[in-house]
């Protein structure tokens, strides 16, 4: 989690600086931007962390920024909105549109910091899951056509004998393919294999 950054976008420089000072007290990396434009210009989707936004920003509003991020990539940084008194409805809309959380001004510092921590943890989890899936996809890509066939039937619950019959192979050959599949997908047991296959299936 050490590589996470808290991105702050706020048009009020003093407010942005003060948020940085507050958030750095829990030893997090902070980066401030004066406008949504400035943030989008330098935005690297690969960076981890979370985004802290004032709902009421001149220029591109917080909600618009959220929409633009969503349009760029299926997954984006979790966003915590800071709302002024009376903007709660706007914040609710933001959350409905996919924002991670919101805090109402004036906020309790511990509350804000807790929410930031949660957002960062959530982001890390999302990204870990995503990279696992990618790894799995890469492993699956390494299977031969025959191995995929065998995998499909194994997952359906067929015995080696039944698979041999089905594919017109000897039981021994099936045994061999099956072992290769286990090895290539780094599965230790049949249950492992079924779980992995299910993950892959959910992808397809």
């Amino acid at each position: 989690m050490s590589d996470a950054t808290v991105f702050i976008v706020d048009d009020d420089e003093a407010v942005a600086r003060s948020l940085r000072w507050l958030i750095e007290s829990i030893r997090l990396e902070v980066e401030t931007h004066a406008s949504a434009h400035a943030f989008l210009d330098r935005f690297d989707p690969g960076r981890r962390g979370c985004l802290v936004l004032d709902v009421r920003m001149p220029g591109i509003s917080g909600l618009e920024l959220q929409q633009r991020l969503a349009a760029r990539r299926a997954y984006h940084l979790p966003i915590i909105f800071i709302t002024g008194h009376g903007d709660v409805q706007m914040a609710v809309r933001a959350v409905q549109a996919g924002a991670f959380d919101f805090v109402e001004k004036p906020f309790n510092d511990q509350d804000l910091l807790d929410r930031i921590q949660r957002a960062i943890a959530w982001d890390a989890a999302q990204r870990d899951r995503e990279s696992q899936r990618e790894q799995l996809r890469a492993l699956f890509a390494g299977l031969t056509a025959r191995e995929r066939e065998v995998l499909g039937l194994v997952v359906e619950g067929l015995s080696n004998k039944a698979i041999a019959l089905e594919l017109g192979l000897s039981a021994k050959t099936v045994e061999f393919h099956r072992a290769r599949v286990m090895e290539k997908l780094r599965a230790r047991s049949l249950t492992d294999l079924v779980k992995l296959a299910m993950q892959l299936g959910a992808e397809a």
Partner: protein
Amino acid sequence: MGTGSEALWLGLVAAGGTLAAALIFSAVSALRLREAEQRLRDKEIDHQAVMDRLQENEYRLRAIIESEPECVKLQAADGTVLEINPAGLKLVDADSPEDIVGKRIYAVVAPEHAELYRENMRRVFAGEAVVYEFRSITLKGRTCWMETHAVPLRDARGAVYALLGITRDVTEHKLAEEQARRHQTELARVARLSTMGEMATGLAHELNQPLAAIANFARGCIRRLRGGDVAPSELIGPLEEVCRQAERASEVMRHVRDFVRKREPQLAGADINQIVRSVAKLTELETRQHGAAVRLELAPQLPRVLADPIMVEQVIGNLVRNSVEAMTEARSPRREITIRTGPNGGAGVEVEIADSGPGIDGALIDQVFDQFFTTKREGVGMGLSISRSIVESHGGTIRAESGAAGGATFRFSLQAAGQEAGGGERRHGLHR
């Protein structure tokens, strides 16, 4: 086609779109024929031919009136409806002619416009052609605005025997007009009466920013001090920021003071009753929309007061608006506001604004003039505080009372003009 009908058709064609004129013309030609009939009868020549022509013309006239898309009606001097065409029946929501023919037209005139209607009838029967607007409540209770073009119908001897009226539903037009007026009143209100309220909202935001920054910087310092792993020198920067933000906040406040100072009253001799009337007009639409009526009880021959009229209007406007808001909020069945003027104990004048609303809770009555004291969701709580500043800057006082009989009463006094020794124009700051 006889000459009479020709004239009628020519009249219609000439009138082009103005059916009212055409119908009046045709009615008049019919009457001319009646006169001709009289003359002919005197000369005792072919009676029957004239009668036929007259008959023919009357049928034609009737046919036109029957098919006329606008309401055409004949009324007697007392308002009795003599005849009305199908379009007219529709306009007043009558299912059959018996619902309205033979009845008084006042059955469908809104009570508050009955007198106006009567006056216009009198003018028509005195021989004038008039155009008037009135609110109508139809037989089925529908409310709409009507515009009537009315002309007198005369008999052969020239005496007016009926009113011929052509009436149109102008509700939509009227609503559009009202909306435009409301918009204008709203503009005037924003410009004049709620500059301070608007400013207070903007001010709140302007102040919130540095205050939020101060809180963040201070909390960041506390957290580090609690953690015990911070060098004192590291805190200098953020604490300097705290000071800068505090200065920023007081800068915002200085702007407010400047703004207020620019609005120093321009005191001169003024007619308080005139000021009250002007406010009554300005707030009329708003009060009417909330079902409230404003009654003025203005004492004659009051001394001129030393006042800035715009500012005193602002005070009375605030008080009237508060009354309307209180009565609306409390759903008071009777919504009445009385504005009285009269001499005060001394040489000056007292203005009283009393309403029939819920009154003010005794426990709160001492706070209502406090800045930002409000019991309303959308309230800023500046209205009364500004009002008091204005009255005091005029050298007067303002008080609130909540009577046992219910309702709130606000009273303020103003000095008479010319009573102060220095003479000429005097200035008071609003604050301090």
